[in-house]
């Protein structure tokens, strides 16, 4: 018999198939094989992107020229634009506003074919440091209420360019999914005066069966209520609302756990496409960080979301997170 599991934070139910679980070999997924070609994110093509906003580069090299390690540019096709006023207004029963926000692209590495799992620890640390620096900078603009860091890797995950990159979007309102998590966490905090995520981590570390990796500062595990097969969460063990407040030591620990977790995932599923997103507390508002705990969610693209999920917000997970964790733990 399958099992219904309820997410303790947002209250979403998920159906986990515990009867006939799908093994890794049962998944037929769209493989991500880079084909190369002219790439605006490769060395020598810096002129193809908007000018850089920020960059880590070799001393003595000119901006918008080769010699960089991590490069941040404005998205050439931004979903939101930075100039102007929000101008929130009604239109009959509808509500709208101007599309104000920031949309930046962070090119993680000069190498066209290297995923994060292929980079050196030092390179990943630089990349994560840049994510933090950009978030700290965007936070200063008080029109923005939320910063979303996300990464689409592979065409199946919605990446329009092959060259590995991460995106940052600053939004003028707190998005629905974040609000749901915050409200759920707040309700739990009001009742128990504890952070629900801290309680979850405590239980995961005790149960152990869903934990993939652990180091001094971070833990990666398959969540008890996974929406997708082989979904993974990485949490800081210390309670903290904002990812951009990580110390240098924590950044190094995150780089290590992120690299190994992704390497394991890609060992089980060769040429996998995936998304990851960072959930962090809202900014420039009065939302307390005592009950919100930032984390990183990895969503492998192994299945397609269909009518049932769209209609209900109920998800079907064909591989239990316990089984997925077993495979991931075993992968070298």
């Amino acid at each position: 018999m399958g099992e219904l599991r309820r997410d303790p934070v947002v209250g979403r139910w998920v159906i986990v198939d515990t009867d006939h679980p799908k093994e890794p070999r049962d998944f037929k997924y769209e493989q991500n094989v880079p084909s190369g070609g002219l790439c605006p994110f490769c060395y020598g093509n810096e002129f193809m992107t908007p000018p850089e906003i920020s960059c880590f580069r070799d001393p003595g090299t000119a901006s918008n020229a080769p010699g960089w390690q991590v490069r941040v540019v404005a998205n050439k096709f931004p979903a939101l634009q930075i100039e102007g006023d929000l101008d929130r207004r009604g239109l009959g029963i509808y509500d709208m506003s101007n599309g104000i926000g920031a949309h930046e692209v962070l090119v993680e590495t000069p190498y066209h074919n290297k995923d994060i799992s292929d980079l050196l620890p030092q390179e990943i640390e630089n990349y994560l440091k840049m994510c933090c620096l950009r978030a700290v900078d965007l936070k200063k603009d008080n029109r923005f209420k939320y910063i979303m860091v996300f990464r689409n890797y592979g065409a199946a995950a919605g990446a329009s360019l092959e060259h590995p990159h991460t995106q940052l979007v600053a939004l003028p309102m707190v998005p629905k999914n974040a609000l749901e998590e915050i409200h759920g966490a707040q309700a739990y905090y009001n009742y128990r005066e504890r952070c629900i995520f801290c309680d979850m981590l405590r239980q995961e570390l005790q149960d152990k069966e869903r934990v993939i990796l652990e180091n001094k500062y971070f833990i990666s595990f398959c969540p008890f209520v996974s929406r997708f097969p082989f979904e993974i969460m990485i949490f800081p063990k210390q309670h903290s609302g904002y990812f951009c407040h990580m110390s240098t030591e924590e950044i190094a620990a995150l780089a290590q756990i992120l690299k190994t977790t992704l390497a394991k995932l890609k060992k089980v599923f060769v040429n996998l496409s995936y998304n990851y997103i960072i959930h962090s507390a809202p900014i420039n508002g009065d939302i307390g960080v005592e009950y919100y705990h930032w984390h990183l969610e990895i969503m492998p693209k192994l299945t397609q979301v269909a009518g049932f999920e769209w209609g209900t917000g109920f998800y079907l997970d064909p591989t239990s997170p316990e089984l997925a964790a077993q495979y991931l733990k075993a992968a070298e």
Partner: protein
Amino acid sequence: MPELRKDPIIGRWVIISTERARRPDQFVGQPKAQEDPKACPFCEGKEANTPPEIYALRPRNSTRNGPGWDLRVIPSISPFLRVEGDLERRGNGVYDVMNGVGAHEIVIETNQHIANLADLSEEQITRVLNCYADRITDLEKDSRLKYVLVFKNYGKGSGSTGIRHARSQLIATPVNPKRVKEELAGARLYYEYHERCVFCDLIKQELSQKERVILDFDGFVAVTPFAARFPFETWILPKQHCCDYTCIDAESRKNLARVLKAVLLKLKRGLNDPDYNYVIHTAPFRRQKVGYWKTIDHDYHWHIEIMPRLTKVAGFEWGTGFYICPLPPEDTAKFLREVEI
């Protein structure tokens, strides 16, 4: 300038992107590959390959699970939820668990190997729509169940297995799903404030503004929603207020069949047979819960949401629940209005 628009019912924001300035015709797809119909388990004569039927429309002189039917309902071959057993709701530390009790059925819409519902006759589509209502009514008798979702996955990009034989699915769940609850709560909030149905207001506004209306006949309107999540997303709403799909009369179902066929044909002709999902949004079973369903007859309005699968949902959407729609719904409505059927 891009626009942020808010869904008036559940409060989801979407970004209507203008930067890439894409045109509707850029979403026209490639024709679908043909497959060998001999391998199809849903065709007439293959009844032995499926689980025994739960419901069928067939002449008196034909035998159960034999040929001669017009429409068949069978349990899913790989069901996620099962009819047998108890729920046993229980806790596990901070988590909540219960057994996977429910129902998962497949409606085989025709005995012929036809892929798209749009290509069936109005009469056949009416039979499908009647069958949905019959199955929901039957499942309501099971007191463990709270909601039935009727949906269709058409084409590989929609999450379908890829067998090109027209069918839809019903999943009955023992809890009210989150997305359904949000919509009900949003509609109720609007009603409490205005004492009007938000969907009725939406229809009125759309019919007076006209720019997002695709079709308007036989008591139904098809519109592209103001805060569309996807390009060419289309909703079909009955003009007559009613919260429950099963309550509409036979005449209305015939009309709905005509409207649904017209919308699906416009998508098919205009975009070269795109993959799509559709979902019927209807009121849950009103099980006894004192006062809880008091206003649902007035505040909620059943409807169908059609989502062509032309773009991929990526990290941003998963992370935020904010959608980026690359094309204004006014443009897609105009494009679909002009497609001849």
